[in-house]
């Protein structure tokens, strides 16, 4: 008889899920849980895999990181990624190849480490500097309409945002402080800060839409 629900990787037990994976991904999971020498070899191999991705990420940002400490940063990112991968191994559903799933942890760790290093010892710029910089980005030939939008946006930031929304918006959107850096300084998470930024942007867009300087945003808030 045909089952009521087609078996997929997501809705099956661990054993059944293993059988649905591609052979390489299945081999990774089996070896990482094998115990003994086979597991040790798999862990070393996985670390090399993550280190390669971390080095790739840092090499793409070589002008920001410099050669000094490059290897240490890559190894630390790979170490952190390995811990994250092993800690979330049960979350791997086989929706992608295992290597793709594992690499995203390496890129996350390498990028976060790099952002924090770039901002080490730097203060978040004050707001006035950010508005001046934004005016320069708009260009010397800024139109009357764009200048009007910029002025309305600046007013709205002060009038419609809460103090916390304003601080987050100014830091992330105006001054381009990396979200991980601000999250660390404020003792919160990237997700929580981005939600605050999203709500602030939505409120600003609606305010500018009320005076017909922007279209009304599509949908209400984030999907979550």
């Amino acid at each position, binding site marked *: 008889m045909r089952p009521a629900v087609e078996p997929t990787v997501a809705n099956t037990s661990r054993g059944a899920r293993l059988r649905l994976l591609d052979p390489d991904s299945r081999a990774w999971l089996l070896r990482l849980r094998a115990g003994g020498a086979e597991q040790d070899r798999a862990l070393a191999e996985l670390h090399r895999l993550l280190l390669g*991705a971390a080095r*790739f*990420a840092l090499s*793409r940002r070589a002008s920001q990181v410099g050669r000094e400490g490059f290897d240490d940063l890559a190894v630390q990112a790979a170490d952190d990624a390995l811990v994250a991968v092993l800690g979330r191994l049960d979350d791997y559903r086989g*929706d*992608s*190849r295992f*290597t*793709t*799933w594992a*690499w*995203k942890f390496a*890129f*996350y760790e390498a*990028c976060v480490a790099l*952002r924090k290093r770039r901002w080490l010892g730097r203060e978040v710029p004050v707001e006035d500097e950010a508005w001046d910089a*934004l005016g320069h*980005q*708009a260009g010397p030939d800024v*139109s009357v*309409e*764009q200048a009007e*939008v910029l002025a309305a*946006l600046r007013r709205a930031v002060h009038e419609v945002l809460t103090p916390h929304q304003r601080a987050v918006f100014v830091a992330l*959107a*105006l001054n*381009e402080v*990396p*979200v*991980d850096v601000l999250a660390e300084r404020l003792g919160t998470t*990237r*997700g929580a800060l*981005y*939600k605050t*930024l*999203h709500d602030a*942007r939505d409120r*600003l*867009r609606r305010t500018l*839409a009320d005076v*017909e*300087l*922007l*279209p009304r*945003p*599509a*949908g*209400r*808030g*984030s*999907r*979550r």
Partner: protein
Amino acid sequence: MSWRKHTTTSPWLGRVLGPGRPEVGCDECFALLDRYVELELAGADAEASFAGMEAHLLGCPACAEEHDLLLEYVRGSAG
């Protein structure tokens, strides 16, 4: 006055105010990123499978950077 003048000619405004449409959060983006990238590389309509991912990648420079690196790396590893 038409707002279209601003939204079509002001990249700085898009960068500051984001995409202006529903999007996933950073945590959901990370959870879906590997599958999303593989769909992109397969030439599938990744956004149709994961609505709100594209908007988030437009609005979040951190997630966009990690997406771009993963996409490039997986593409290179397949070659």
